[in-house]
């Protein structure tokens, strides 16, 4: 069995290709960047799934993609690409494990929506109602932003996380808390 540090010629060529694409992406070449991320995605997914089981693995894949995007200025083209992206992915896995240890299992989007079964419909029904507008306005800014992006603007969790500059996991926690607070406020405002 080959050691971790021993790469096959195919892997070396692939790393070389990725290195060149990332260097081009740093110059603003969007096509090279998309090719890089598309090529990397299955490898990254396998890397994460080798360390994490369950639906949280895809969360970590997306968190890693966001981190790669935000850290792309730290890649130096004279250095290999593999250790760079693997360090980012490893940290994303560790962060999730630590977050689980701190506040229990990660909240899934499905669970977020289950917190208030009718809230999604209610948000649409009451889109402009004074009660909802007031309840939303009373939410802490980060929770309000998360609820608005997910439900009123219809973004995915990853897209919303990207928009506000946070991780998908953190955005889900904000939305989860926001939904709970909204539900309580809307229930309290009914006669």
């Amino acid at each position, binding site marked *: 069995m080959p050691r971790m540090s021993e790469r096959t010629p195919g892997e070396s060529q692939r790393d070389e290709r990725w290195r060149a694409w990332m260097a081009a992406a740093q110059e603003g070449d969007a096509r090279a960047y998309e090719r890089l991320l598309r090529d990397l995605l299955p490898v990254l997914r396998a890397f994460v799934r080798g360390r994490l089981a369950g639906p949280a693995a895809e969360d970590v894949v997306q968190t890693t993609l966001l981190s790669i995007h935000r850290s792309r200025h730290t890649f130096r083209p004279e250095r290999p690409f593999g250790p760079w992206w693997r360090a980012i992915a490893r940290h994303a896995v560790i962060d999730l494990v630590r977050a689980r240890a701190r506040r229990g299992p990660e909240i899934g989007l499905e669970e977020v929506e289950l917190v208030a079964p009718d809230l999604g419909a209610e948000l649409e029904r009451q889109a402009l109602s004074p009660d909802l507008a007031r309840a939303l306005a009373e939410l802490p800014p980060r929770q309000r932003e998360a609820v608005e992006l997910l439900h009123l603007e219809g973004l995915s969790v*990853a897209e919303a996380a990207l928009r506000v500059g946070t991780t998908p996991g953190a955005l889900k926690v904000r939305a989860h808390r926001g939904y709970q607070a909204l539900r309580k406020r809307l229930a309290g405002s009914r006669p």
Partner: protein
Amino acid sequence: MSEAASERLVRELARDLRPVRRVARLRVAGLGAAAAGLLAAALALGLSGLRQDLGGLLASAPGFAALFGGLALAAVGGALAALGASVPGRDGVERLGLALLAAAAALGMVAGPLLWVLPAGAASPPWTRDGVCLLGALLVGLAPAAALVGFVSGAAPQRPPLVMGLAVAGAVATGALVVHATCPFAGLRHLVLGHALAPLLAALVLAAPLAWLLRRRLARSGAAQAP
């Protein structure tokens, strides 16, 4: 989240991609911090001068010498660990820095008991002098700290409080080393409180606020990078 969402995210990220300015090489950043530290040290030494019995103390008082070596190792180790931890994939540099810091801590542990056998007459000065030396270490450490924190802020540290703590500890250890070489006092309490603990105290006090500022900056730049 589904695999389709990951595919969408890839498209989002690639759309409207903006060029970025690469961070400096670690070697360049390290040399910059070292130059800043040497400049500050030269200035401080020019103002206060080396203690006259420095050579004698280093040769005859092993505790004093161990502390000197420990502070030197902490200065280099803190800086290397902070630099390595700021850039993904530079774990080797980070590990080397942490190993030097561990060696510095070990030397500090050794120095503690050895300091009891300081030369006769090496009494500790008034408590206020401990504060003066702490402040001196901080002031001399400002320049290398600015160089290190500047690099770290522009990079991508995964653990901001730890990285800031390492950067501050390394920079203030440089200052404490200069203080150790210039301060005319050599009493046990003074050497421990005013010199040896300066990097640790500074890191404990400054790491959290600096990390908070860094997180805010990273969050802002993260949002600004969003397509």
